[in-house]
């Protein structure tokens, strides 16, 4: 019984809290620009509105067009359930769960790209091509980051890997993972979630033809992914396991807030990169993670 309640609580936490993050980012951006900006809860209003709306389908779309967003959403949620939440631990922990998490995110990518290619739109093909290509570099960076945590802690279970700090390589890892976060969540400087010029976008352009409840699932899934990456980043860098649970919870929340505000600041202060520079930046993220790995390896063998 307790486990059912616990899982329900976790689910509710992820579902309810996730859409807050884009609201905070928008507030930060508005504040930097000196505007009033949309309410923090704007995404909740949008989701509720979309959930009530009807859909419009392309003549070319197969049933997979509706299945894609659902699969992606479930995959992201499943990945989120594997992530330990500081002192609250995780609902399910087993050896190698970190790899399942990475591959669940890949499943979400497959489903999103699949749905994007359903409508035969050249723009969406462009977005899907960019998404799956840049993900190659992002995935190399993530797996290297995981490897460095694993070398440092001698474990491949998320709960054990994220408990101690990542040691001397923490700053490198933070830089690498933050860059990957920006890329995977389609934020500036990789992508611009605000623009409506489709030629310049990755994620937004993949979901051009979605509407109604499937679009709500896409937006909500994207916000969950952002929350997932912010928690992962915080836990990878801060030694939450060695702290008092209440302090640890506070630090986790603060960490997520710092990451979110950081995303907002990056978005306000930087311009989007030209697409040919994107691989360079992602390679830099990979190299940062690689150096973190070397530091961890040096520390572990010394």
């Amino acid at each position, binding site marked *: 019984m307790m486990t059912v309640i616990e899982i329900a609580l976790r689910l509710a936490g992820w579902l309810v809290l996730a859409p807050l993050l884009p609201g905070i980012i928008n507030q930060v951006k508005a504040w930097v620009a000196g505007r009033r900006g949309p309410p923090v809860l704007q995404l909740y209003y949008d989701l509720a509105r979309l959930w009530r709306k009807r859909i419009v389908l392309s003549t070319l779309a197969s049933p997979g067009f509706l299945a894609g967003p659902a699969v992606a959403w479930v995959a992201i949620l499943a990945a989120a359930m594997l992530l330990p939440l500081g002192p609250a631990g995780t609902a399910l922990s087993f050896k190698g769960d970190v790899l399942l998490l990475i591959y669940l995110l*890949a499943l979400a990518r497959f489903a999103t790209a699949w749905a994007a290619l359903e409508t035969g739109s050249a723009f969406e093909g462009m977005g899907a091509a960019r998404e799956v290509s840049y993900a190659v570099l992002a995935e190399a960076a993530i797996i290297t980051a995981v490897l460095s945590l694993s070398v440092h802690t001698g474990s491949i279970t998320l709960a054990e890997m994220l408990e101690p700090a990542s040691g001397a390589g923490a700053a490198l890892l933070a830089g690498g993972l933050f860059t990957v976060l920006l890329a995977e969540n389609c934020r500036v400087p990789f992508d611009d979630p605000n623009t409506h010029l489709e030629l310049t976008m990755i994620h937004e352009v993949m979901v051009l033809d979605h509407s109604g409840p499937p679009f709500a699932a896409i937006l909500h899934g994207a916000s969950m992914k952002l929350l997932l990456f912010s928690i992962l980043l915080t836990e990878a860098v801060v030694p939450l396991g060695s702290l008092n649970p209440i302090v640890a919870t506070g630090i986790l929340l603060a960490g997520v807030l710092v990451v979110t505000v950081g995303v907002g600041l990056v978005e306000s202060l930087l311009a989007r990169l030209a697409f040919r520079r994107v691989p360079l930046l992602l390679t830099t993220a990979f190299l940062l993670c690689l150096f973190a790995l070397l530091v961890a390896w040096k520390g572990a063998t010394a």
Partner: protein
Amino acid sequence: MPGWLTGTAAIALAAGTLLGLRTPRIWLAATLLAATALLAAAIGELRTGVPWDWHSRFLVAGQQVHWRMDAISAVFIAVLAFVGGLGAVYSRGYWDDRHHPRSAPRSRVWWSAMLLSMLVVLLSANGLHFLIAWELFALCSYFLITLERRDTEVRAAGWLYLAASHAGTLCLFAFFSALAARTGTWELGPVRDHPELAPLFWIALAGFGVKAGLFPLHIWLPSAHANAPSHVSALMSGVAIKLGLYGIIRFGGWLPLPPAAGWVVMAVGAVTGLLGIAFALAQDDFKRLLAYSSVENIGIILVGVGGGLLGVTHGDTAWGRLAMAGALLHLWNHAVFKSLLFFGAGSVLHATGTREMSRLGGLWRAMPWTAILFATGAVAVAALPPLNGFVSEWLVYLGLFGAVTSHHSAAVVAMPAIIVLGTTGALALAAFVKASAMIFLGGPRTALARSVHESGRWMLGPMLVGAVACLALGLVPLVFWPGISTAVGAWNSGWAAEPAANPLRVLGPVQVGIAATVLLGVAVLRRRAVTGPVPVGPTWDCGYAAPTARMQYTSGSFAGIATGWFGWILAPERRMRRPRGFFPAEASRIERFPETVLERVLGPAARLTLRFAATARRLQHGRLQFYIAYVVVGLLGLAALVVTGVKP
């Protein structure tokens, strides 16, 4: 029991070879009987783990026939039975007598003969018989590849296969005769106590590597797989190249290992995986794409095998065991999803008559079953949960991470292998999103894709079985674990005593949970979204009023970004006519990705050799007086040596 089953299967296959020409139904029944018997024998062997031996009373080529089935051969025999049986059913719809009156009977005969020769390869415990069966198997696959021999491209592919295969066989001749000379017998078995035999491992790796398709020995593989009829491609990709792996795995478990064996195999596997999938992503021909993806999967299996070998050479078994288990399971998984994908590709080829993805599109409407089954295979091959590809890759990862977390010296090669494996996974996802979407989604790019039909039951049935097997191997891997565990124990006799820790106990139920949640999510969203009649309209192309299907992203443009990063090895040939003037009449861009090793390295090297030979040939012109002059000059040279006393 295994004796009876194997005997029945061998007789049924021999009968199929004899009867296949005239009686398709009896042939099919015999092949299915053989497949069932072999599957039963393999399952029985994997359950008990007790090897089965059989010695003949008669001699073949001066040697007593000795057949042995242990758990390692059983793993491969199961693959052989599965793909062999399914392919036989599939060929009845795909390569029937009505459309191929001349080649369909030949296809049946060679099919049975190939299954039989592969079975004998897997059972032979005598080096000489192994070689004979290996050669027969190479010949049978040559005749199967060249069923459509009027096509020059097919003949070229077959010839290349035959040449490459014999280059490999040459190594194997050296290998087996050296082994026999050193041990004094043709009988095969563990020879770990002869440390001087260690260098033979490299000859075996090269000889079997040609058949397995290791980079850069894979040159024959793409064209052979692409030009063979699709049921043959499935057999080649699912089973034939696995026989190369069988050799590497088998003799890696028997020979004394050179110290570098493990990490060389792992490094070769990682390079094969990464470059294989890079080539796959670049292809526009979907069967070539699948062929290169086979190269990639062989790479992943070899990374696991390398982990197992490292485990053996370092005497540490826990992670070596896991990596090896992952390799063996991936071997099954690859056979299952790759045959499914080749069957799907065959159905598309059958319906449209083209292998070029840029001419297809939107086939899901006419071929919904093929589309969904192909998509299942695509998810499996991209190693995504909850299907089977993920389970085995996960085991390989666990093995590699085990080497890393124990801070073992093997970590130095395991860490790069993990990173390469992750990158390979992301590229495989890109390649298979591309393949399934370009063929089945969007609008039809040419008229070829417009008038198509769904395949018949003979073709859909085997694909359905393949998809169900993908699901089963993914959702209940626990069922398959004991067999894999037995095989890993049988591979290295030192390991058999250890209890098998089962890492799949948690992953299996989690996979089921994920699958159930995905289905639930799709159902809920669909119910919510489709409440009444749904308004349908043309795709909103940012307001462009007259979009055409030719404006869709093509396979080349989809892969363009990632293939650009691999331009150094892919070396694409581009021909471009830019639009000129104010009212450009026409423009074109043609891009071709050659098989780099073959066309840029081997081709020039072969031409150079030929040119040198042609030059040398001028010395031989048939004029006697010159020949006498050569002899005189030679003698004078020798005399000069003798007189001056220079010692060579």
